[in-house]
């Protein structure tokens, strides 16, 4: 049984049809890379999975639970969305750390607010703190926990953003072009962290323009074009022996670089 099953997702903004009938599935522990040119709908797809956009049609299942089915209004209730959202984590292109909190507080804020709501903060405080400290060790920033975001480099900020997403224990962690705002040097350190997560068998969806990385780290690749899945398969198929003309064109441009 796949951990994620996406069926027939459609989304339009006004007259523009951004997603046309997107379907795919993902097994637990798999890494999916989504590639494609700008405007092909990759980011919108991730935003639909994270309930930042509501699809106009289609369904999303996680662990066989229907999170969203546009044909079933009972799954569209605003009050339920918050809980459903936590199946997914999202790392943004522009990091979006909270500037007024230290790196450690950025990571601890969401679990803290959730625990405050359940009046359990006093009992889980130590556990959350220890977990955050461990995450900082994993991303190699143990010495930067008390820094504010503006005191960190872009690569460091993005690593903190990854820790911030991980502490909510999402089933599926999504990355929206996590290195597009970084220079090549800083890109490496972020990719290293993502690679480490893939070795730990985390289920991830990575939208990226880093072709080499997509090929190396992914178990599965989707090439999107004009709001459709143009081609999908294992990395060696899609990159090594693309079937669709559009995929060949797109990859050729990257190989030239």
């Amino acid at each position: 049984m796949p951990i994620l099953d996406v069926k027939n997702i459609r989304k339009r903004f006004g007259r523009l049809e951004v997603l046309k009938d997107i379907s795919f599935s993902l097994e637990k522990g798999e890494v999916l890379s989504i590639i494609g040119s700008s405007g092909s709908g990759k980011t919108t797809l991730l935003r639909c999975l994270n309930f930042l956009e509501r699809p106009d049609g289609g369904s999303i299942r996680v662990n066989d639970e229907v999170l969203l089915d546009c044909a079933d209004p009972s799954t569209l209730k605003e009050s339920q969305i918050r809980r459903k959202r936590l199946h997914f984590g999202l790392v943004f292109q522009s990091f979006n750390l909270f500037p007024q909190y230290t790196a450690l507080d950025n990571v601890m804020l969401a679990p803290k607010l959730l625990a405050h709501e359940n009046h359990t903060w006093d009992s889980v405080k130590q556990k959350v703190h220890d977990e955050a400290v461990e995450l900082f060790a994993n991303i190699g920033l143990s010495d930067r926990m008390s820094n504010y975001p503006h005191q960190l480099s872009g690569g460091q900020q993005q690593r903190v953003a990854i820790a911030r997403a991980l502490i909510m224990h999402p089933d599926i962690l999504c990355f929206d072009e996590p290195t597009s705002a970084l220079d090549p040097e800083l890109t490496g350190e972020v990719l290293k962290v993502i690679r480490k997560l893939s070795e730990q068998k985390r289920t991830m969806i990575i939208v990226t323009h880093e072709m080499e990385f997509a090929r190396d780290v992914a178990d599965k690749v989707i090439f999107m074009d004009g709001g459709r899945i143009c081609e999908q398969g294992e990395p060696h198929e899609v990159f090594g022996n693309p079937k669709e003309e559009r995929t060949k064109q797109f990859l050729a441009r990257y190989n030239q670089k």
Partner: protein
Amino acid sequence: MDIFLHQLPIVVNALNVGFLQTLKLFSVTLLGAFPLGLIIAFGSLSKIKAVSMFTGFIIWIIRGTPLMIQLLIVYYFPGLVLHNPIWGGGEQGRFLAASLAFIINYACYFSEIYRGGIQSVPVGQQEAGLVLGMTKSQIFFNVTLLQMIKRIVPPISNEIITLVKDTSLARIIALQEVIWAGQAFMKGSHGISGAIWPLFFTALYYLVFNGIVTVLLARLERKLDYFR
């Protein structure tokens, strides 16, 4: 010179009493207008068209007419038009009427500053909160609010400094604030009459008080400098 030295303590005492009233109006206005402004800002940001349009209409009226006329209307309208003089005739009533007019007026100005502040916080901040499972109100109070405050301190400071001086408009309904107290010495008060200098002297009160306010606001601005 002898006369001046004789008059000075009498004048200062009277002006102090007047300035206390100025300070009261200043403080009450801020206390009322800060939260009311936030409510109005939420109104103008509302997705419900009727609410945002109604709020926009109110803001247009309040910002588009002189505060002095608003004071006169708030104070005289109930008694002269509705024949129900809710404010009474005393200083207490004048103070309440002035407070109401000032709070409404300043809340409208603050609300526009708040609105700009809220809109200037990048939408990514809210989205980051949402995907971490925070509620909209948790995001507002824990993420957006402080970033908004940091951005609005300079424009709000301007309004606060203007408010210090605007309180003198309450004189139009004979509120006994510091300029009223200074002017009284022209007609005759505390045994002094025909003296113009006490009126000029009141400027010193505003100047010193605004000096203090400026220093405090600059300190707040520096305090929020720890993040960007």
